[in-house]
């Protein structure tokens, strides 16, 4: 199986870190992963985007052909990618920053990542909440490997980040 | 019985490469001899002396010295030497090159090496023009001088090298002429002992070019001019030591700066020691 995920956000939201952690987690699970990144030339306030392909097979071609999941933390990310969204694609958005048009409501997971991260006393942990949601929705990596990747990256802050990750995971997987 | 002629410094010279390429009346022979004398007196093992240059008449000097010598590209003697010194800090690395090489094409490297207090001795043989290419003007050509590229006189201000070096933070700064070989040699010896960036400027005639264009009949006349029109003032205000002979200004010589601040190699060693502890 191959899963194609595009993650879009503004500089400073931790998009690239989030994508790398997902890749690390998937590799830990024994899968192949490839990630290309693009960013505007501005250090702060610009956009950045990461394309992730996670597969059971070796990956040669790094470009996404069929977008399975669009994750966006900015309205711009949705608008820029409208053409790539198909009926079968799923959206994962930051609720407070992205207004999802009615047409896409049914295929969208609107995650209040900022709010949840704040409630867990980790206002910088929004990307960790989103990572949890991506894990829960795409099932492209296991919860255990996601946690392991986070504690490896943030050895001194692993607990508060894992809390955010778990909360995001729960947000999309709880029954009902 | 045959008499063999041997240069008294033969063991320090690559005899097989002599005679040298320099013109009659050039000061570079004096510079070479002064360097050798200084290296001998420096107390540093001769094999640890490395001589590096860029391109130009002066840059040919290392090729005649019987040491480990490196003749690099135009203007790049200092960064080449920087790499060598960091890689092999036991070496005493001297860069000896001309004013055009060190301050025109290589000026950026000079100011950065001085800023870093890089453990190098840089000797600039200043003949106020590009000798090897036929006497064009450069950043050290005094105002109003004639040269093969300033036929109406030089309209640019020239670099005041000791002031420049001191402003950036060189640990040792001196200026002499080739008519002051004893002081120059002593200065070189001292500079070889400096930890950090040491700079010695030495004024030298260029008879077929700068000399000819500016009214000196030969190299000796130019040397005599520098001797007669110079005064030694170690306490001189460096702002005032620019060279401007066409407007009657005296040439100020001396040992202007000799101060201690931590050198690049010392600071790097300290940082690397800490980093290796982190690794363990």
């Amino acid at each position: 199986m191959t899963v194609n995920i595009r993650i879009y956000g503004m500089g400073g939201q931790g998009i690239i870190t989030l994508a790398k952690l997902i890749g690390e987690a998937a590799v830990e699970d024994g899968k192949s992963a490839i990630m290309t990144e693009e960013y505007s030339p501005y250090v702060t306030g610009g956009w950045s985007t990461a394309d992730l392909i996670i597969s059971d097979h070796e990956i040669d071609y790094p470009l996404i052909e069929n977008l399975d999941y669009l994750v966006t933390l900015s309205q711009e990310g949705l608008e820029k990618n409208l053409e790539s969204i198909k009926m079968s694609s799923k959206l994962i958005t930051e609720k407070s920053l992205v207004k999802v048009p009615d047409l896409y409501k049914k295929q969208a997971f609107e995650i209040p990542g900022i709010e949840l991260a704040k409630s867990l006393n980790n206002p910088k942990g929004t990307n960790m909440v989103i990572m949890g949601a991506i894990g829960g929705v795409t099932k492209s990596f296991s919860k255990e490997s996601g946690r392991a990747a986070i504690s490896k990256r943030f050895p001194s802050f692993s607990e508060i980040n894992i809390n955010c990750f778990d909360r995001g995971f729960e947000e999309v997987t709880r029954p009902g | 019985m045959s008499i063999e002629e041997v240069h008294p410094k033969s063991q320090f010279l690559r005899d097989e490469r002599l005679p040298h390429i320099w013109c009659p009346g050039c000061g570079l022979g004096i510079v070479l001899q002064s360097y050798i004398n200084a290296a001998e007196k420096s107390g540093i093992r001769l094999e640890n002396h490395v001589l590096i240059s860029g391109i130009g008449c002066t840059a040919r000097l290392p090729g005649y010295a019987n040491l480990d010598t490196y003749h690099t590209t135009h203007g790049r003697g200092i960064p080449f030497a920087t790499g060598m010194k960091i890689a092999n800090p036991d070496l005493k690395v001297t860069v000896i090159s001309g004013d055009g090489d060190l301050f025109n094409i290589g000026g950026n490297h000079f100011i950065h090496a001085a800023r870093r207090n890089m453990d190098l001795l840089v000797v600039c043989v200043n003949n106020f023009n590009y000798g090897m290419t036929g006497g064009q003007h450069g950043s050290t050509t005094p105002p109003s001088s004639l040269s093969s590229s300033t036929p109406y006189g030089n309209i640019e201000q020239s670099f005041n090298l000791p002031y420049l070096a001191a402003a950036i933070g060189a640990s040792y700064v001196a200026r002499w002429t080739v008519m002051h070989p004893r002081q120059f040699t002593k200065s070189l010896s001292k500079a070889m002992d400096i930890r950090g960036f040491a700079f010695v400027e030495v004024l030298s005639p260029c008879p077929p070019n700068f000399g000819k264009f500016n009214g000196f009949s030969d190299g000796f006349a130019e040397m005599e001019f520098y001797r007669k029109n110079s005064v030694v003032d170690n306490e001189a205000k460096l702002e005032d030591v620019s060279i401007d002979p066409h407007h009657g200004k005296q040439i100020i010589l001396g040992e202007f700066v000799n101060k201690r601040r931590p050198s690049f190699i010392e600071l790097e060693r300290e940082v690397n020691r800490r980093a290796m502890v982190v690794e363990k």
Partner: protein
Amino acid sequence: MLPPGKYFTDGNFAATEGALYGGCRFFAGYPITPSSEILERMSRRLPEVGGHFIEMEDEIASIAAIIGASNGGLKSMTATSGPGFSLMQENIGLGMITETPTVIIDEMRAGPSTGIPTRVGQGDVMQTRWGSHGDLAPITYSPNSVQESFDLTILAFNSAEIYRQPVIIASDQVIGHLSEILTVGNPEEYEVIQRLTRKKANGNHNTFSYSDDFIPMFVPGTGFRGNVDSLTHDEMGYPSNDASVEREMLEHLLGKIKRNETKIIRFEEYMTDDAKVIVVAYGITSRSAKKAVKNARDEGLKVGLFRPITLWPFPEGRIVELAEKTRKFIVPEINYGQYSHPVREFSRRETEEIHFPPGAIPDFKIILREIERSFT
């Protein structure tokens, strides 16, 4: 050293760690997108392994410093991108004429001039071959993955030592920033060529030898008393104006590579055995080309992929062999036609260029369409 294992990481990380495996102990560089992460990582890692790092004032100073450091006794490298690589050209020639081992990573980005710093290009390919003035025989590697960024950097250090000259790694912005799996084996699995040196000269202090392809370097500070010169020089390292010395020196510099070409040249082939059409692609473009070839094979088209891993020396012998049973070559590149020239010259076959404008990873469908057109 990086512990053995599996990593999800990018090309810049892999190149840095590969360099350390290869014995790099000195780095001088100047920040430039997209290779800055190599410089940053080196600034942290080199002091940890007993090496040395310095951020220089520009790229000219950087390459002069690594050539100086290598002559001082340490394996050295720098990393840059187009504009910086252009600035380094004169001193790449210095490294060649002084036979100084060193490694230069050039991560190609969109050009000319400043171009688009954050976007991919392959416009420096001819510059790696002909960029510095005079006759040179450079060795240039072209990694197409994170794994190769690691492996080829080790190899580049080995080649630099064996052939005593600067070795270029022509990577690109995508490979530098692409993250994928890097597998690092046990250190003993990697062959690392140690620097051979000559110390105190007993009588004969010739810096170079023109009758021997592989003469070790001398170490300054041991009483060798050698001269190393950017001017045309004889075996003593002494400058000469003599055209016969120039010829002797050049025949040595070019000959030591020419005579060992079969040991140096590396390439990879995919389904070339019965191919009537062969796609020649390198770097990131080779991955798009491979997908195009796979898809074309699914359609029953007899097409193959030839991927030069050493761009230079040019794999002339193999291209000539392949040309015997191939009617056409297709060369997709992220430029307006560079590597297509030697392919055409040596294959003497129809050679179709596909020009991908710098800025993006080539779309495999464009290559596939060209393959399909070749069979109609």
